[in-house]
């Protein structure tokens, strides 16, 4: 190959790669930033006492309680912020019963492409179990689903912040 062609090719390739790298860094910067969704907070049904007054938490009347329990268990749901990743957005809803996390429901999961759907479908149940066990958003990464994990936990944390947990 002629020197001019060689140099031209090397320079052009480096240029293209640098542009790609720069674009990638910008994308990365934006993916980790949680963008608050318009429905944040407003969608929560904080304070409403729905159901479970007799079933969960034991009844206050029948047994002479050894521990002082409140009259009825308090259940509320909090919707986390929607977090955008390059594979799609992630949003969860956290159910809090008597100050503990009783359930996490995924409202949105990464769905840009077939592989993302497969990955997030695998990761979501694992993350749910871990959050329930740890009672916080500080749980370990699901390998191979880093984007989903980070977005999922960010959304969980924002819901917990609303719940004041």
């Amino acid at each position: 190959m002629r020197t001019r062609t060689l140099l031209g090719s090397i320079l052009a390739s480096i240029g293209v790669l640098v542009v790609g790298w720069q674009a990638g860094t910008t994308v990365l910067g934006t993916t980790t930033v949680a963008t608050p969704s318009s429905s944040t907070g407003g969608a929560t049904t904080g304070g409403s006492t729905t159901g479970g007054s007799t079933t969960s938490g034991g009844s206050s009347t029948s047994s002479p309680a050894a521990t002082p329990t409140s009259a009825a268990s308090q259940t509320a749901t909090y919707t986390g912020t929607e977090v955008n990743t390059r594979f799609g957005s992630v949003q969860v809803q956290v159910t809090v019963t008597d100050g503990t996390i009783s359930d996490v429901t995924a409202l949105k999961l990464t769905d840009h492409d077939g592989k993302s759907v497969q990955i997030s479908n695998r990761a979501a149940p694992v993350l749910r179990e871990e959050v329930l066990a740890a009672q916080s958003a500080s749980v370990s990464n699901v390998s191979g689903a880093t984007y989903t994990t980070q977005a999922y936990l960010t959304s969980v944390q924002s819901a917990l912040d609303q719940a004041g947990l």
Partner: protein
Amino acid sequence: MTTTTARPARATVHVDHRRRYARRARIADLIVVAFWASGAAAIALFLASGGAGQFTSVGEAITSLGIVTGLVGTDYVLVMLVLAARIPLIDRTIGHDRAMAVHRKLGKPALYLLLAHGVLLLVGYGISSGIDPIAEIGSMLALPDLPLAFIALGLLITVVVTSLVAVKRKFSYEGWHLVHLLSYVAVAFALPHQFSNGGVLAEGTAQRVYWIALTVLAFGSILTFRFIEPVVVSLRHRIRVAGVVPVAPGVVSIHLSGRGLRALDARGGQFFQWRFWTGSTWWHSHPISLSAMPTDSSARITVRDLGAGSAAISAVPTGTVVSIEGPYGLFSDAARTAPKMAIMAAGIGVTPVRAMLEHASFAPGEATVLLRAGSEDETYLWDEVRAIAQAKGADCYVMVGERARRGATWMTQHDRERGVSLTSVFPDLLDSDVYVCGPSGWLDAVEADVKRAGLPSHQLHSERFDW
């Protein structure tokens, strides 16, 4: 060795071939740069969609590498399609045969990259989800469009393996070509999974737009220049066989009639792909050079029955419909880089030289011709060449006889012993463009000799007549 010299007073017609070559070389350089940049762009696509953050764990790093190899491998395959599309710009600047040489060279790397793509993703995804790569195949096949992609890879392996020199030799050209056409199917089958499963090419990304453009460019140029244009040109010029005239034992000139043939804009020395529509010959097209410049209503090619296919076309009846693709090739005065021309032809290789000499514009004394034949029977069209050389003021030498048995030489034993050499025939060799056309063995010997004499490679233009 005999000499027929005609040297009228030297005219002052002057075209700056060096400057024209410099321009052509710049475009050729740009094409090469674009090729390498497209490979880099494939990597950049991946970087742009997440950068180095995708190499944080072993599984992820392997997956990321798998995606990159897939992107670069596919880019190479698309480049191969572009190179094989016979795009006029590429043929004019780097030449069809050099483009095809690059096409052949890219085949194996592209296949290795795509194989690596498959294996790395199986391993990478396997590690991520905690199962072995073989079990991961099942989970992969459950993804949309992945079964097609697996078939595509299988087809691609078939295409590349049948193109290995050792394997290709066992096939007839037609059989091999038929298998080779599967590469279109392979590329088409691999497309859906790139867009439905590739996170890099997800909907709404700039990467997706670029990739679609690249695919459209590759398939579009194949469709345009390999299918649409030949059909349009053939229909427009209505070429038919006007007569077949024997030139020598086993060699015939096929005279053709047509309409507006000058508009084909063929340069002397170029070739067309010819297809003769008779029951036994329509399925095979032949690359054959013009042996005379076309008039508006007639053209001529001269063929020797080298293969079974050529023998059949030397017997086509008058009136046979002919379709063409072309003109192709840089074996013409358009490729000149230097002030003088040194032209060598052996055997049936004289045909493009005959047309080039007729078409090329050069001042008297600027061109020198050496005609070579194994025996007096093989001096095809020599009378015509001599007549043109005389009329245009080119020196014309001839050399008849078997090549010397000992040593790699293109000369006869007798001439070698007499001390004939390249520079004795072409005194201004290093100031010349050397055009060589003939059978492979002879041509190799000439090329070696020319390089030994110190001729820069861009001044050497050769056309192989073997097949």
